[in-house]
């Protein structure tokens, strides 16, 4: 038998205000029609109810804190909850704005029955700050109808579920208000009465939406649900409780974000190479930082260290009001094997060291060196990213200087020539550009790499060190 679970979260927005101070104050969410749509426990105690007008609510509770209703934020929170629950249960479908369908019939074998399943799921839910109501049902709509009555009924017995469903008032169904009124005029107040009627009779009096709802409620029509898939990206936004201008203070909320990332990465055994951190301001466009780690990293402490190095360089002209952390690509974690017999002190790998240097000094300040198969000195050395293995087949030319000057300088002193000439020509046909290279020593004892152009001018290009 199919079995579904519906979870309803009555106050996602007020419950997401994580801090203790917000828990002490009455908080309510108001929609555009000035109607209370969500409230926290403290507001409920002071007599405020859902769908109350804003004026009445304010009169009842003078220190009521109001939040505007944000559909996008609500959806984001719901998605986060679904991702969190995905760790214990497989088939989850979103039901915006505040519900989740979970198909649990195929999870029962794994958890050895409903009790074990509910234990695992409720433990996961306990970690989240959101209040919830739940109910099970033979179809998604049945479960939803029961959950909206806040029955908190979890059973697999068809009889108990059918009885509960038959007693459900019509206002908890998905029927529109016109249909509900029409049915009430006919003396039909509960779902049981409606289900007892013959379908042909209903089809004559009511439109197809009622029939399709009843069909899906009974399970005779197919109800398509879009089950979520685990994300391979991470995107979280945290609104700061107060504006922060000191980058050191900023690391606290950032650490919380990074820990969420660590949890997600650890669960799927992944790491990431790059973070996008956006600092959001009230009056300025957001400042975006990209923080990289050459070795894929998942630990929050290591990421925080890299982030702090970048933040230290930053001069904030305006306080930060929010933080957004995004990771677009995950990579599988690779464990590195250390030498068992030669333990190297310090737990930093070369790639981690390079990331650390890049974070503080900038990407262009850290580089490697490769040898190219070129005879011209300017092109023989290249500075790519560090720790890359270049072509091994290239043989090095003997007697080249240790350092090349960025721009050849005119020779202005007397030198004693020791070696040369060695003629280098950029291209076979450009005979005017040919250079004759010499090695010379000046009066200070410096060994210089000199060349003479076809026009008999002398230049210093390198220094033997």
């Amino acid at each position: 038998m199919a079995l579904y679970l519906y979870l309803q979260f009555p106050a996602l927005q007020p419950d997401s205000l994580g801090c203790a101070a917000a828990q002490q104050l009455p908080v309510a969410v108001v929609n555009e029609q000035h109607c209370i749509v969500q409230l926290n426990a403290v507001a409920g105690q002071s007599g405020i109810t859902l769908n109350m007008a804003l004026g009445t609510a304010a009169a009842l509770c003078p220190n009521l804190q109001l939040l505007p209703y944000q559909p996008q934020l609500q959806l984001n929170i719901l998605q986060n909850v679904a991702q969190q629950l995905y760790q214990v249960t497989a088939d989850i479908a979103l039901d915006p704005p505040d519900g989740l369908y979970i198909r649990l019939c195929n999870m029962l074998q794994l958890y050895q029955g409903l009790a074990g399943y509910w234990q695992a799921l409720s433990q996961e839910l306990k970690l989240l700050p959101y209040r919830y109501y739940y109910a099970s049902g033979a179809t998604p709509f049945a479960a939803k109808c029961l959950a909206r009555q806040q029955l908190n009924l979890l059973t697999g017995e068809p009889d108990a579920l059918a009885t509960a469903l038959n007693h459900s008032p019509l206002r908890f169904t998905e029927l529109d208000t016109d249909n509900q009124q029409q049915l009430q005029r006919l003396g039909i107040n509960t779902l049981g009465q409606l289900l007892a009627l013959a379908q042909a009779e209903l089809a004559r009096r009511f439109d197809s939406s009622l029939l399709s709802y009843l069909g899906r409620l009974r399970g005779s029509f197919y109800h398509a649900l879009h089950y979520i898939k685990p994300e391979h990206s991470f995107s979280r936004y945290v609104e700061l409780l107060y504006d922060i201008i000191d980058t050191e203070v900023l690391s606290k909320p950032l650490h919380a974000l990074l820990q969420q990332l660590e949890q997600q990465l650890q669960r799927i055994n992944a790491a990431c190479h790059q973070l996008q951190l956006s600092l959001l301001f009230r009056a300025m466009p957001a400042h975006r930082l990209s923080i990289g780690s050459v070795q894929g990293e998942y630990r929050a402490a290591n990421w925080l260290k890299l982030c702090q190095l970048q933040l230290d360089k930053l001069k904030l002209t305006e306080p930060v009001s929010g933080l957004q952390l995004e990771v677009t690509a995950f990579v599988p974690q690779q464990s590195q094997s250390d030498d068992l017999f030669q333990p190297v002190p310090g737990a930093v790998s070369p790639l981690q060291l390079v990331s650390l240097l890049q974070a503080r000094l900038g990407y262009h300040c850290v580089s490697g060196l490769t040898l190219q198969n070129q005879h011209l000195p300017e092109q023989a050395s290249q500075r790519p990213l560090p720790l890359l293995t270049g072509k091994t087949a290239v043989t090095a030319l003997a007697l080249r200087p240790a350092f090349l000057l960025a721009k050849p300088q005119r020779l202005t002193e007397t030198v004693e020539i020791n070696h040369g000439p060695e003629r280098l020509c950029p291209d076979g046909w450009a005979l005017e550009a040919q250079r004759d290279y010499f090695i010379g020593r000046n009066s200070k004892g410096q060994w210089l790499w000199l060349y003479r152009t076809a026009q008999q001018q002398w230049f210093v290009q390198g220094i033997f060190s």
Partner: protein
Amino acid sequence: MSALLEQLTRRQLLWQGNSQHTAYQAVSSGYAELDQQLAGGFPASGLIDIQTGQGIGELRLLLPYLQQQQSSGRLLVLISPPAEPCADMLCAAGIVLSQLVIVTPKTSKDALWAAEQCLQSGCCASVLLWQVPLKLAQARRLQLAAEQGAASVILIRRPMDGLSLPVNLSVKLQPHRQGVLLSVQKRKGGWPAAPFLVDMQNRWPGLCFTTEQHWQARRKAS
């Protein structure tokens, strides 16, 4: 008397002048006369101070040592080199380029920070640091970081007077036609030595004048 001496030695209250050869682990410098003077070679870890003019052969003196340091698979880091390092020369001297990292910080403060990070990490064998003014406390910090990561940091700077730094080895180089003239300023567990010639004619014949050329030049001058 000898029983008393033995007792004092066991309690580490007695210091003997001839038990100093274990001040640091030495790595052969690749030049026989230098190894002899330095009792084995350059230190494998700690701060090495080299006071030298630019381009007289200071890197050539170090290359065999750096190559041996790198052979354990650890990194060699060049911090703020004076110009573009040339791959040909380093590769010909046996340096593995994939284990080479070049860092070009903008300020000397960043350079010191980078040096300390590299030394502490334990994945670098040697760090070369060019022309960074170093205070006593900073030198001490580098020395400690180098000991922690079992790495060596080589400070290459112009000859200058000042307070002596806490180093494992401090040498001064002067140009010479057949190599470099090296004088040991300070050595942990050893004595300063008078200037002597490190002959590079075997290793680098192209960058030395032979004795005949030397005499020819003398005759021309006279």
